[in-house]
């Protein structure tokens, strides 16, 4: 059994939220100030899915602080988990799937760190993890579901079943997951933290409601009026948000729907490095891309203006 009572303790999670200021005031801070709210040992839930709308600028800023003992959870987790493992920042991953995608094969870093027992890997089904965030977003300790029943995944997290009080049927009591911190990247937000997402909503809305602390980066900071013009498109209201940072290309080289496409060739170079030199290639990558640049803008400059604008052109072509 690997889930901790703290993850589904809905009363404690509720009290943490009640004790927190929920202001309609300004949320805008620097990227550094945003991630300074993460403490060693925290459980971080990441928004987006795989290489889409990954909060990479937040992960980037966080790893520069050399954190320790973190748990990362994400529905499908991409190579940001490899970064966390190799950096020694992460000792547990909670997800339904880890890798980049079919063309890149198995994650050699996942194999190395999980097979040797250095990092705990807690696997849920995709919906199973989604319902964990949803239960927390609803403020309840579990949600009944038909998924995962009969599979060995039930043992991995220590899932329990519940007998339906009405029909007598057996259901999976999917335990809530209240993360300490949510890391999210969105297309636009106003300075008060009201967030609007284009394209895939993924699980961001639930994660923002489930976590005790919510950190957001946005491609664009827009006026309050622009949000009020289309309030139906707001997925996360400002009073849920603790800190907001402006981060253009904040998911790059992952994709941000409608804004820029992912860079599969960059993934291939990264994976080829691992094939040749294992974890040392990731350590070098982190040195070059995460620690060496003086700012996130300097990090983007490593890719170059031409590539950034080409990725933006491809995104326009794919969403119009």
């Amino acid at each position, binding site marked *: 059994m690997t889930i901790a009572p703290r993850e589904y303790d809905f009363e404690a999670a509720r009290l943490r939220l009640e004790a927190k200021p929920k202001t309609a005031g300004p949320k805008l801070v620097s990227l550094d100030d945003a991630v300074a709210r993460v403490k060693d040992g925290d459980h971080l839930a990441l928004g987006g899915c795989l290489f889409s709308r990954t909060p990479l600028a937040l992960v980037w800023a966080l790893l520069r602080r050399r954190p320790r003992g973190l748990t990362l959870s994400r529905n499908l987790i991409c190579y940001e988990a490899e970064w966390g493992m190799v950096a020694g920042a992460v000792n547990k991953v909670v997800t*339904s799937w880890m890798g980049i995608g079919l063309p890149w094969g198995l994650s050699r870093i996942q194999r190395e760190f999980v097979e040797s*027992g250095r990092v705990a890997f807690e696997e849920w*089904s995709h919906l199973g993890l989604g319902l964990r965030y949803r239960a927390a977003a609803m403020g309840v300790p579990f949600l009944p579901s038909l998924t995962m029943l009969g599979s060995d995944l039930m043992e991995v997290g220590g899932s329990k079943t519940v007998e339906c009080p009405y029909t007598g049927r057996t259901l999976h009591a999917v335990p809530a997951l209240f993360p300490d911190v949510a890391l999210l990247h969105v297309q636009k937000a106003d300075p008060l933290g009201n967030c609007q997402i284009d394209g*895939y909503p993924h699980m961001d809305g639930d994660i923002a409601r489930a976590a005790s602390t919510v950190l957001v980066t946005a491609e664009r900071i827009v006026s309050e009026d622009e949000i009020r013009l289309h309030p139906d498109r707001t997925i996360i209201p400002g009073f849920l948000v603790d800190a907001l940072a402006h981060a253009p290309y904040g998911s790059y080289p992952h994709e941000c*729907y409608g804004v820029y496409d992912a860079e599969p060739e960059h993934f291939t170079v990264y994976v080829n490095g691992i094939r040749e030199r294992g974890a040392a290639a990731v350590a070098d990558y982190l040195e070059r891309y995460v620690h060496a640049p003086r700012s996130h803008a300097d990090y983007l400059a490593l890719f170059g203006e031409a590539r950034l604008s080409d990725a933006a052109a491809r995104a326009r072509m794919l969403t119009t």
Partner: protein
Amino acid sequence: MSVTANELLAVMGARELRNDTTVFTGVGAPMMASVLAQRTHAPRLTMMVEGGVIGPTWKPGELPISTNEMRAAYRAQMLPPITDAFLLAQRGFFDVGFIGGAQIDRHGNLNTSAIGGYARPKVRLPGSGGANDIISLCREVIILTVHEKRRFTERVDFITSPGYLDGGDSRRRHGLLFGGVSRVVTTLGVFGFEPTSRRMQLLALHAGATVEQVRENTGFEVLVSPQLTTTKPPTDEELSILRMLDPKRQFIG
């Protein structure tokens, strides 16, 4: 035309789909099968993709690598949050679910988690993703896989996605009241499950394949249907649609 393994799987998978139904599909061969069905006998088939996509119209030459990138959402009818997408399946809206290759046993249980023990595996695999949900929640599931002995194993090391568990009614006894694996489509033939024991049973061979070949490439005893048939080879029309969709042969091989 000579046929690749993925083309064969896509064609045979497509033929299992019916018009006026819904399919929960993934990237790779399942995606090719679903689009091929839409473009041949099933124009009123609705596709749903794991990242939260309903009714996409994928662009030839720009097929998605992942289930949640912009290419997967191209000209979709709806992009629901992922949890809500899967809950449509739990409600019972999906007739068929497609799952790709994995380690599989005689009762259709799949392992995509770990070879060897879970805690200290010999080979750590990527994990369930949505496969467990699709096999637990869709009305029926079709598995598409290359037929290799190392995949078709006596007993999977870990049940990531439940087929018929220990056979008989064990799926239902565990609370899985709906669904089950209806077909396993491989590069050698098409398999179903004997209704009482729920053991895998060869229903049809692809042209050129033999029962001996199936036995040699399967790690458990395969039942053979008394009405064993042979599938019709992929037609030029089917193959040219697949090649038009994937001109760089990224997915069809």
